[in-house]
């Protein structure tokens, strides 16, 4: 391909297509831009613009409820992501490299987890956690963070398993066979060959789990106990009484953090030799 494809090709159909795509991408950013603008709102309510001010950012740092909610979200996110990544990576490797008759059943379980609406997870988990924690007297299940981690980990385990599996299925297992032929123990082959091969998928899966946990509103609002309010549940609760501009301020900070993390991941994946298209492929595997 030494023909240089200009961004705007000649045909009018292509021109229309280009315009549609640019409008769509711009459309995706509208509410984000609006939230960023409104994070500088001097008014009392988020929704009604009353002039420019940095006050929301000052208030954001002062309110203990906000600090606590963001703290709970970050803590839950890290634990849920680590847990989902560990369990999902092992499961994904097993599915790709050692599928047996069990694999079909396991895949059905994963599929069910990923198609079940979040609200069903929420209403199913709540009575179950109460049964475990109170009726069967296992007090760990009365801990807010534990409940949140359980709720957030379900979908993430399925996603990580799918991503890791599809990454390894795409790579032949010759390297692992060679390693075994050269007398590496199975554990060593796993650590030195299989895991490094799966690494880009593991990383993407872990990050996706973290983001999904930070995003989770419905399951969290059902299973949370007092004192373990996550950031989305805080917003959800404030929604009825009218949102304050500091909600937009925190969201803006989190948006900037997301950008930084995404840039970091893109960098890491690029160093491991993945093109942008294959990064998208890794992500869309879920």
């Amino acid at each position: 391909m030494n023909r240089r494809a200009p961004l705007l090709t000649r045909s009018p159909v292509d021109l229309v297509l280009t315009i549609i795509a640019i409008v769509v991408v711009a459309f995706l950013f509208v509410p984000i831009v609006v939230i960023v603008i409104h994070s500088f709102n001097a008014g009392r309510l988020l929704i009604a613009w009353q002039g420019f001010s940095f006050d929301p950012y000052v208030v954001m740092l002062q309110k203990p409820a906000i600090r606590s909610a963001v703290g709970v979200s970050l803590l839950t996110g890290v634990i849920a992501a680590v847990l989902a990544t560990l369990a999902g990576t092992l499961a994904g490797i097993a599915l790709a490299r050692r599928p047996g008759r069990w694999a079909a059943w396991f895949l059905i379980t994963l599929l069910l987890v990923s198609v079940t609406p979040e609200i069903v997870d929420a209403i199913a988990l709540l009575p179950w956690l109460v049964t475990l924690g109170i009726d069967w007297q296992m007090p760990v299940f009365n801990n807010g963070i534990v409940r949140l981690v359980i709720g957030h980990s379900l979908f993430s385990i399925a996603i990580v398993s799918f991503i890791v599996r599809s990454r390894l299925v795409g790579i032949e297992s010759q390297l692992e066979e060679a390693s075994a032929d050269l007398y590496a123990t199975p554990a060593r082959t796993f650590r030195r060959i299989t895991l490094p091969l799966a690494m880009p998928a593991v990383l993407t899966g872990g990050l996706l789990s973290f983001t999904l946990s930070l995003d989770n509103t419905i399951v969290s609002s059902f299973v949370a106990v007092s004192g373990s309010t996550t950031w989305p549940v805080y917003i959800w609760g404030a929604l009825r009484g009218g949102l304050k501009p500091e909600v937009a301020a925190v969201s803006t900070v989190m948006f900037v953090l997301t950008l930084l993390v995404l840039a970091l991941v893109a960098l890491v994946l690029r160093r491991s030799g993945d093109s942008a298209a294959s990064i998208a492929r890794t992500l869309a595997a879920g």
Partner: protein
Amino acid sequence: MRARPGFLLALPAWLWLVVFFVVPVLQVVWFSFGRKPGIFGTHDNSVLTLDRYAEALDPTFGTVFLNTLWIGVAGTALCALIGIPTAYWMAVKAKPQWRGLLIALVMIPYWTNFLVRTIGWQVVLAPEGWLSTALGALGILDGPLEVLNTRGAVLFGVVYNYLPLMILPAFVAFDRVDPTLREASRDLGAGRWRTLFRVTLPLAAPGLFAAVILVFIPLMGDYITPSVLGGAAGSMVAQLVAVQFQAGQNWALGSAIAVILILAIVATAALGYALFRLVALPFAAARRVKLGAP
């Protein structure tokens, strides 16, 4: 790592999912065959009955089911209509060196908090919001914009929220189509439309169908978008389930509604797959002719 450890590696994840997903969901199915025993109880399974299913499908709740199905089908169709051409442009028409940036631009909104994005639209669409003011200033609109708390606002919201979920897999589907096949088609005298309909689309079709399903499933169960944008007029089934479990304290009825929701999602997706096979059938013949196509 011989035969057995494959199973053992998957065991932690499997056990976790069985204990915290399969068992609780089965419990919900069990609840759905019970009843609400008086004002203070939440569920009672001493007598098993299908009455909760009849109750869930009576006109009060039935309209919400129809509403949800309408939003689900129309929302997915609009996402496909907007998302697939965009993905096609990204994968086929845009300069290769732009692709990374374009994918990032689609992914960033997807990784931004769902609830916050939806609130962003609430700010835009509110009667005293930006769009209302802008349309008023342009003289297009007389008086405040009255779209918030309607079914239309929910449809708009879900199309926005699930669009990245359509574009990314559709991009992958188009990206996997070998460009040399398109060139071959052009070299053999097919025009651009013929190439699109006889080569590119048939090859990308399975991936595009997967994208449609990927959007439809979570969209049908959406709780946040109708709660933020829909008000009473635009309510969806997920909200009914939540109300029965929270304010209503009627777990039996809530469970029955949840089970019907899952069945409705599966049935519609299966119907969609059947239709897809029917539509794809005429193209299958064209596919077989190609050399080396996957």
